[in-house]
């Protein structure tokens, strides 16, 4: 899933974004687009986090999209139904959560309205805003869907959202509804311009001849590649990855996806992986790990596996996949077998489950940032020294070996031990997962919290872009990848104090260590 698909994946006939079927071969584009890659990374981007509301709706209809279509009663709404319907390739019931999640941008709108964000949709604020209490109410979903139908009709420019899988060089069209002012017009922005098409011009010397291998035919300079900068935004989760300034390729990879639980509740998934530079083909390792972990998580979550178990198994699946790469690629001289780190976060029913191997991290940032904390403990030399009581954290991090990782996925790993942690936030906030390309510039949760935009929960893509750009502006010494999962954090039955720090529940393998870490938040 590398680029926005504008041709039929089946017959390559050019198709419009709004087409539901290919005029040439007749294939259902929503399904084809989806099954071409990750069937569920197809939810349209208009965001908000209504999926959780569905999840908390006990007798939510298993077919909310149908409901919403009826309720919305507009062509635009129908258009949206098409894309999430694609997820139905894996079973309608399983995906209706995602569908519902996709549709009710209205919920997001409601939130936006409540937080006073959106011109043009502000009028809907009252609608959505009137609903929050309805989160626990049986027919809330329908209500949101209906509201969304109205939004869709009113804010017509959204349809790009219907194309599903987003890898966007430029700030995402689909998020216009949610985040209208992502980037200003003006000077050429490297973040929004990966030249495409036939008329490519060398970014180095301006020559107009780029060879099929992606190098300038005059000066030889490698031209920007799709993976150099990637953005993906789904309902309830988004990710941004950038090559940075000092590496010739992006060896980080990520996946974001959404699906639903057998009970109709939603599940949102993000995976971030950092290829080990000294290994063979680290970029392939990270991509394979992110894709396979995401796929494994979705399958497990759809079939009702508990998130912690799903997480552990998904990381092992990714580890096996990366192991296999050792046989698929000839090992580069004096390099290790393909290897990468992994960090993943899953949001189900207001519950956050994090899993990781290596030094890619997860953080929790409540809306008021007061209880910001790191959720992961690095598999790194520095951590090992600190844990063994041999060095202070400051001493350990000052050492040249600090960043050497002690755990990774790959054939040269002696044993892969996935760490997991689960907690249920009782206040709204945002889960961040990222590679060291970000946290190298702001290691402590409090420092990083100062960089996370205040509206990260409601404008996650903008926040993800801000964080990635922050790392690049600070030197971009490494590839940087961030994924954000907004959490509404409203307990269905027990409204809680908004400023309360998150409660860590006991199914973490590392909770004792995590306690050690609390000091930094």
């Amino acid at each position, binding site marked *: 899933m590398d680029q926005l698909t504008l041709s039929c994946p089946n017959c390559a006939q050019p198709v419009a974004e709004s087409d539901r079927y290919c005029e040439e071969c007749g294939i259902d584009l929503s399904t084809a687009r989806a099954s071409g890659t990750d069937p569920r990374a197809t939810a349209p981007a208009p965001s908000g986090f209504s999926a959780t509301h569905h999840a908390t709706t006990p007798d939510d209809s298993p077919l909310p999209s149908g409901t919403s279509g009826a309720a919305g009663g507009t062509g635009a709404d129908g258009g949206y139904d098409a894309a999430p319907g694609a997820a139905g390739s894996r079973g309608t019931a399983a995906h209706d959560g995602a569908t519902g999640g996709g549709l009710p941008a209205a919920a997001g709108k409601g939130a936006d309205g409540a937080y006073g964000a959106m011109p043009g949709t502000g009028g809907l604020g009252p609608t959505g805003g009137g609903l929050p209490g309805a989160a626990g109410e049986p027919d809330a979903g329908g209500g949101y869907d209906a509201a969304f139908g109205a939004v869709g009709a009113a804010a017509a420019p959204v349809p790009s959202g219907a194309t599903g899988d987003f890898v966007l060089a430029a700030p995402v069209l689909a998020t216009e509804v949610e985040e209208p002012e992502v980037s200003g017009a003006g000077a050429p922005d490297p973040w929004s311009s990966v030249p495409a098409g036939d008329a490519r011009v060398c970014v180095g010397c301006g020559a107009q001849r780029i060879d099929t*291998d992606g*190098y300038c035919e005059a000066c*030889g*300079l490698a031209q920007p590649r799709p993976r150099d900068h990637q953005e993906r935004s789904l309902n309830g989760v988004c990710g941004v990855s950038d090559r940075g300034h000092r*590496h*010739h390729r992006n060896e980080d990879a990520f996946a974001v996806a959404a699906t639903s639980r057998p009970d109709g509740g939603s599940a949102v998934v993000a995976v971030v992986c950092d290829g080990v530079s000294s290994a063979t083909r680290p970029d392939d390792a990270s991509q394979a790990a992110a894709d396979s972990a995401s796929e494994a998580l979705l399958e497990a979550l759809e079939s009702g596996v508990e998130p912690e178990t799903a997480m552990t198994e998904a990381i092992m699946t990714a580890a096996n996949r990366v192991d296999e790469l050792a046989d698929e690629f000839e090992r580069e001289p004096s390099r290790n077998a393909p290897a990468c780190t992994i960090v993943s976060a899953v949001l189900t029913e207001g519950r956050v489950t994090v899993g990781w191997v290596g030094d890619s991290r997860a953080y929790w940032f409540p809306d008021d940032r007061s209880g910001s904390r790191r959720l992961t403990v690095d598999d790194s030399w520095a951590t090992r020294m600190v844990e063994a009581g041999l060095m202070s954290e400051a001493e350990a991090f000052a050492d040249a070996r600090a960043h050497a990782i002690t755990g990774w996925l790959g054939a040269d790993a002696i044993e892969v031990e996935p760490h997991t942690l689960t907690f249920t936030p009782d206040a709204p906030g945002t889960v961040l997962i990222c590679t060291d390309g970000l946290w190298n510039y702001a290691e402590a949760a409090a420092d990083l919290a100062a960089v996370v935009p205040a509206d990260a929960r409601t404008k996650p893509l903008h926040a993800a872009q801000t964080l990635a750009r922050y790392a690049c502006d600070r030197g971009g010494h490494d590839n940087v990848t961030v994924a954000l999962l907004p959490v509404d954090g409203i307990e269905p039955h027990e409204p809680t104090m908004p400023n309360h720090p998150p409660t860590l529940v006991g199914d973490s393998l590392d909770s004792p260590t995590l306690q050690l870490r609390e000091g930094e938040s």
Partner: protein
Amino acid sequence: MAKLTKSNFPQFSVDIFQNAYLAQGANEVNAIVTVTATGGGTSAALPAAGYGSSLDGPDAAVVIAVDCSGSMDYPPTKIRNAREATAVAIDSVRDGVAFAVVAGTHEAKEVYPGAGQLAISSPGTREEAKQSLRRLTPGGGTAIGTWLTKADQIFSTRPDISIRHAILLTDGRNEHERPDQLQHTLDRVQGRFTADCRGVGTDWEVAELRRISSALLGSVDIVADPSGLAEDFRAMMEKAMGKAVADVALRVWTPANASVKFVKQVAPVVEDLSGRRVDAGPRAGDYPTGSWGDESRDYHVCIEVPPAGVGDEMLAGRISLVVPQPDGTSEVLSQGLVKAVWTDDLNASTKINPQVAHYTGQAELAGAIQEGLDAHRRGDLDTATAKLGKAVQLAAESGNEDTFKLLSKVVDVVDAKEGTVRFRKNVSEEDSMTLETRSTKTVRVKK
């Protein structure tokens, strides 16, 4: 014997071995290019009857030039062995291949078929050719340039034949023409045919014969014992018969502001091709590689690039195999990319690719032997000992056993690892010439 047919055009593959990572400010990119041709001449077994008139003419032409200078009579076994070897070579000429025999002295005389022509090989013509070898009688001097000119004239009667190969046998120095005359001839005929050179005995000069074989993209070797000549001729002829495509060139494209520092063939033997560049369009040059059968050769390409910033990647070179077409264009057979990536990761940038390291060592080994033997000739025993010591060390390190054996006939190896050697007391001329002739033979990287 192996047969060839025009439909068996070999498949060429190009593999690039390099460490693309450069430290900040670095500007030299090294790569080993492995070119492998398969499915061509030698692997195609065609019934003998398939040759000759049924095809549209011969695929290959061979001229054998045999030294008939007066010295070939001392001892008389020399000329006898040369006759026998030539007879064996004639027997190895496949049906349908065009061939001729030339007697070389201070001038070139046609022995068979005569009148500046090529004969078409058949049992009958081969028998006639062997009969005519009686006319090879020693007398006169040595002017190899005249032999080459004659071979060129004979080949040029059949411009339709693309694979043209000469076999040269000599026993002495090129005494009856000036070096610049020979060079002039080489400049004129190079690219028109290829040639293998063989020196009989020890009265010839390695550097001189190497100059000829290098210019004509062939091999040079010593046949110290004339009785070994027949087998060597058979092998050479079989190799020539295995060629399926001629005039293949290694094309090196470099980007603006980059330049090729050198292009060397490094396996099976070291051969510097840098001076052989022929421009081939903007920023591209062709380096001749001669004709190919089923075989694999390695090239070391060194390119200077303008240094770029950390994180930048550029294409430093595009290496392709090209073969000229009748219409004057050239067909690209295969290609590979040489890249440069600047990094601040010293671990990555300081690693030398094992292939590059190995062949750099093999080229250094060849150089050390030649410089060592040169110094020895000048009577500079210290330099000679140091150079051959270094050579012993390099040969041992890289597992070049053949060269190591040849070296140990010239020096006593005290400590191969340290490169400590002593010159042997009575080194035979044969041993030192054999070492010099074969100094450029390399081995491939140990797995």
